[in-house]
């Protein structure tokens, strides 16, 4: 009997990579994920189209003003470069002139991509990634892998695989927005739009990481896919509520009290997308640091349970 004993023990990184690659493959083979992705992409495309239509109407209104003031036509580029009302709208929305000026200088579809991604993608991740480990614990499939690598490498591999999926989803979403804008917006600027999307994509990924980590926490601490989803989504809703309370005027008053609530605010990722909109200054790097720290914290909490639990 020829038994292969050729070993390749490159260690933990190799195991994490192997598990991540397998996780990605399993997800791609799963029709459920593909259906959810299609739904997400089509809703993204529809909303991008709706946004483009709104921007189109805004362009037309601006054109009338611009033509009256001597411009020959108005398009997307002109809108962002020359329309004071667009900048005013952003200033009113953001309450920060510097940030509004920064956003006014990039194509509107990029701004919409960032808003949609910061707002909705975390919930998709909370829903889809939560079952990653829990479903395998429920069916005991995890035992086949747990015999061959440590629980830490297994969990990290699963998280990395999910991160790859998220990266793919957000990249596809960016592509969808690019194509929708290309088809619907007048004066579409391919280079500026592509650069803008490329600039926001890593920021969106950074913001999504703690949510992914929270979903992994739910997955590591439960023993069924459905319960994991409940913990993932329910827990995130609680965190959102908590973040809202921490930032509300009702609970604030006095330096010490504010500091305490600010500290509580650092325990949830909600609210930490603000700094990621404008890639300059302490808020930007502070929010990146908070997102990364929460990613480690949530994963560590989940792994503390997984390490000891019965599989």
């Amino acid at each position, binding site marked *: 009997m020829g038994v*292969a*004993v050729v*070993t*390749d023990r490159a260690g933990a990184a190799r195991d994490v990579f*192997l598990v991540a690659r*397998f996780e990605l493959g399993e997800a791609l*083979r799963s029709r459920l994920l593909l259906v959810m992705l299609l739904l997400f992409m089509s809703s993204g495309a529809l909303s991008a189209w709706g946004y483009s239509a709104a921007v189109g109407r805004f362009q037309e209104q601006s054109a009338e003003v611009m033509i009256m003031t001597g411009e020959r036509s108005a398009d997307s580029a002109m809108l962002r470069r020359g329309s004071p009302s667009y900048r005013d709208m952003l200033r009113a929305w953001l309450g920060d002139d510097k940030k509004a000026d920064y956003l006014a200088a990039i194509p509107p579809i990029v701004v919409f991509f960032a808003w949609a991604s910061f707002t909705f993608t975390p919930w998709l991740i909370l829903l889809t990634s939560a079952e990653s480990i829990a479903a395998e614990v429920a069916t005991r499939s995890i035992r086949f892998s747990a015999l*061959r690598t*440590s629980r830490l490498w297994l969990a990290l591999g699963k998280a990395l695989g999910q991160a790859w999926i998220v990266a793919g989803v957000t990249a596809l979403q960016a592509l969808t927005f690019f194509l929708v804008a290309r088809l619907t917006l007048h004066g579409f600027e391919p280079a500026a739009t592509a650069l803008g999307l490329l600039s926001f994509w890593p920021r969106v990924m950074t913001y999504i990481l703690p949510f992914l980590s929270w979903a992994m926490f739910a997955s590591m601490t439960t023993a069924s896919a459905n319960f994991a989803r409940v913990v993932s989504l329910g827990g995130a809703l609680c965190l959102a509520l908590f973040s809202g309370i921490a930032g509300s005027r009702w609970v604030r008053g006095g330096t010490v009290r504010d500091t305490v609530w600010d500290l509580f605010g650092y325990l949830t990722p909600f609210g930490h997308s603000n700094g990621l909109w404008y890639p300059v200054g302490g808020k930007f790097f502070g929010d990146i640091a908070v997102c990364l720290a929460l990613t480690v914290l949530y994963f560590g909490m989940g792994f503390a349970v997984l390490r000891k639990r019965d599989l």
Partner: protein
Amino acid sequence: MSSPALRFDDVRKRFGAIEALRGLSLEVPSGTLFGLVGPNGAGKTTAFSIACGFLSPDVGSVQVLGHSGFDPARLKGRLLALPQDAVLGRETRCLDLLVFFGRLQGLTAAAARRDAERVLEEVGLTDRRKAPTKTLSHGMLRRLSVAQALLGAPDIVLLDEPTSGLDPRHAHELRELLRRNRQVGRTFLISSHNLPELETLCDHVAFIDRGQVVAAGAIDVVTGKGQEVEIDLAAGPEPIDAVTRALPAAQVSWNAERRILRITFRPEAGNAVEDVIGAALRALLDGGARIGGVRRGTSLERKFLEMT
């Protein structure tokens, strides 16, 4: 004497109100085909799961290949198992799944692929190598589960009900496969309710009942093959006294209802099992008895029923 492949020391495990293991102590010698027998709920699967590191013991310790507890990073690919009721990936193709497992236990990509092809052939699934696992029948999935436990060169393999759900041909082929694997010095711990199968396959056995070992050792010793003879008598004369006189050092018991004569003796020089059988048969035939059959020792099944 080499250290045991697997050793449980006073292991206890409780699930809520149920105490699954109540001080299980057991040694599985290296290179043996070891059968683990017990009624449902006796603690066999719990013991397997603790050995594999899926469960942690509440009390006691487990040694795997001389190491305290099973650490998959340290003993990569050296302990493999067929866990009970564990579902193999649904969407992945059989070959890809085995290659993944092979790689995860330390094989190179080329070696993992070669070995996956080998084990698929050994369990008769070569023609399904490209099929997603969800398309396999129950028996095929069982064979695939066995295949993953034979990847690479494990020192010890734990198989929980390996022939459950297999048709007679594949069950036979699996038994032959295990025998062949044993010849390379591999240790197998097999849990099964099929006692005749274990009796023909294993050289060591342990009976577990209510979370404890009630008997363990070489199968010939446990079943008394070297110190016990059973003779079936057909209807007719019953010269039991003649046998008692012919074998004064042996203990002779007669079950009139089942018509089984059991002779228990201490094997010594000139009093080997063959000598005892000869003397007993001579006495019975001289007394006019009609012999229905002769067995060395008790069957594993009967011993199990007696002890649990």
